């Protein structure tokens, strides 16, 4: 077994403000080098917060983070000042949901890529521009020499996201964090960008943590899928396992709520109810109020972590125990 590229142990993120929000609760996650993992979840489930925590981009004053995060042997939690800046963009970089908002509007694409390269590799500006040109070729932007001198507003959405990818990969990071990078793009461009990402991932051999709410996208790109609900990872497994053999009722609900093989005019499958408020740290299964299979045990205590197979993880009360007087600690094969 190879050393893990990313290892997150018991990550907790809380935001203080007018009210406290428990955004991420006890998250455990690991990623092998060169592996693509998708965090799947709905809005507010804490998936983007997890990514930002990995780059320490959350506002420090209003955020309390605890737990341990290691990326490529670097203890992310202890990084400060220059070392933190070296880690960001150097070891781990990120592509954002809306490239129009994530690129500085008054700098050219070339300047923005070269700036990152010069910062990390300590090379001259003109050498940085050469790298930028090279990267634009790699993400297959047509007439890259001209695009290098373009401002973000002069490019199309798909082109901007390619430029964003070029920027993120310009310093050859070991880990790429992708925060819904295709959500703001239209369907045909989405596929192109996904294919490009997968290709570049193979070429550069980096690990990717991909965040999305779109199961189709998740299946397209990932080796493994982690499903997140209300700040907790509720199920982890290979893409095949999740699609074929989902154990958690929430994951099964998500898989049922798609548009494939649906007769027009019939009502779509949906998970009833809405996600819970995150004011307090959960003391029971957060999904229990919406769960069609829940029993009294589910709302009484935190569900156990089941490991039905190697690398598989399901946080759910085993079916047989849901109506029992006390929770059994024994992991059941059929969750």
């Amino acid at each position, binding site marked *: 077994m190879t050393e893990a590229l990313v290892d997150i142990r018991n990550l907790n993120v809380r935001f203080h403000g007018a009210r406290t929000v428990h955004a991420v609760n006890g998250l455990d996650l690991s990623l092998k080098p060169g592996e693509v993992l998708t965090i799947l979840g709905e809005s507010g489930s804490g998936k983007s917060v997890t990514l*930002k925590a990995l*780059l320490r*981009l959350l506002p420090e004053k209003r955020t309390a983070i605890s737990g341990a995060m290691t990326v490529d042997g670097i203890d992310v939690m202890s990084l400060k000042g*220059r070392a933190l*800046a*070296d*880690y*960001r*963009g*150097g070891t781990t*970089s*990120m592509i*954002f949901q*809306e490239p129009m*908002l*994530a*690129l*500085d*509007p*008054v*700098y*050219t694409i070339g300047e923005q890529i070269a*700036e*990152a390269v010069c*910062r*990390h590799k300590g090379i001259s500006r003109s050498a940085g521009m050469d790298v930028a040109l090279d990267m634009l070729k790699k993400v297959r932007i047509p007439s890259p020499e001209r695009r290098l001198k373009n*401002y973000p*507003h002069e490019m199309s959405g798909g082109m901007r996201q390619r430029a964003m990818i070029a*920027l*993120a990969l310009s*310093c050859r990071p070991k880990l790429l964090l992708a925060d819904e990078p295709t959500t703001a793009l239209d369907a045909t461009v989405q596929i192109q960008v996904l294919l490009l990402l997968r290709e570049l991932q193979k070429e550069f051999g980096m690990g990717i943590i991909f965040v999305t709410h779109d199961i189709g996208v998740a299946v397209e790109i990932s080796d493994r899928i982690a499903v997140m609900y209300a700040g907790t990872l509720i199920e982890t497994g290979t893409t095949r396992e999740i699609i074929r053999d989902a154990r958690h009722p929430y994951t099964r609900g998500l898989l049922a709520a798609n548009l494939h093989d649906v007769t027009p005019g019939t009502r779509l499958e949906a998970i009833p109810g809405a996600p819970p408020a995150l004011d307090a740290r959960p003391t029971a299964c957060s999904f229990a109020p919406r769960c069609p299979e829940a029993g009294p045990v589910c709302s009484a205590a935190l569900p156990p972590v089941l490991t039905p197979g190697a690398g598989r993880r399901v946080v759910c009360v085993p079916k047989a125990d849901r109506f029992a007087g006390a929770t059994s600690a024994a992991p059941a094969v059929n969750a």
Partner: protein
Amino acid sequence: MLIYFLQRLVSVIPVALGVSLICFMLVHIAPGDPLTAVMPVDATAEQQAEMRAAYGFDKPLPVQFVLWLGNALTGDLGTSIASGRPVADEVMRAVGNSLILAFFASAIGFPLGILFGFLAGTYKNGVVDKVITGIAIAGVSVPNYWLGMVLVVIFSVSLGWLPSMGAGPGGSTEWAWDWEHLRFIILPAITLAAVPMGIVTRTVRALVADIRSNDFVTALYAKGLMSRHVVAHVIRNAAPTALSVVGIQLGYLLGGSILIETVFNWPGTGFLLSNAIFQRDLPLLQGTILVLALFFVVTNLLVDLAQPLIDPRIRRT
């Protein structure tokens, strides 16, 4: 780019024409006869008519306007009724003095306003922000003639460090670049700078705070930039808007301030304007307002021309 510049230049012509029409009309809309101030109380009807014809007030208004505009284009703004001197000379001397005052007020107000605004926006809701916002609100809200009088009481009357009025020793109105003259400009310049400083501070603060809340700032940190690199990005993003606010404020400063120039007896356009109003000196009033209005048009034009050099998004024609 060139087309943009030409468009901007051409668009100034109708604006300037409209401005001159309004200047001309405003004075005629105001009640009262301009000649009452200079005419003897016991003047006969014939004498009054003669006087009116001499100043051209007997012709219909549109004709008066065309004649006035035609003369103005050749640099002749008529003759002051009160002093009998050419209006153009009077206005130009006053403009010179107001420009000097505006220059010093700008040198104090704008750098300070931009610096304060930047600090407050960067450390929004912190102690620095609260102190600076307090200063900015005071600068905008305190009536500046009152501030001027307070400064005079402190620095001229009590401490005796600086003169309280005039533009030079011995009532001289000719400016010179020496300490003897500089002493006279310090208090009026500080007083005049207070309002633009406050406005620029508040605008730049909101601007910087807004820019800092953008996703791209997070993205800049995400690619490994240090705070000092990010500041450079914020400055370049804030520059176009900050520039246009400074431009508008500069327009106000160039116009001189009736109140401040009156408090300090500064022989600038504001002082001239208030005299012209009280003496019902119609040609002088029209000439002064026209020159001031054109100042505004020209500063806005300069700002418009400078903006695309900084902000690529305006560069499209």
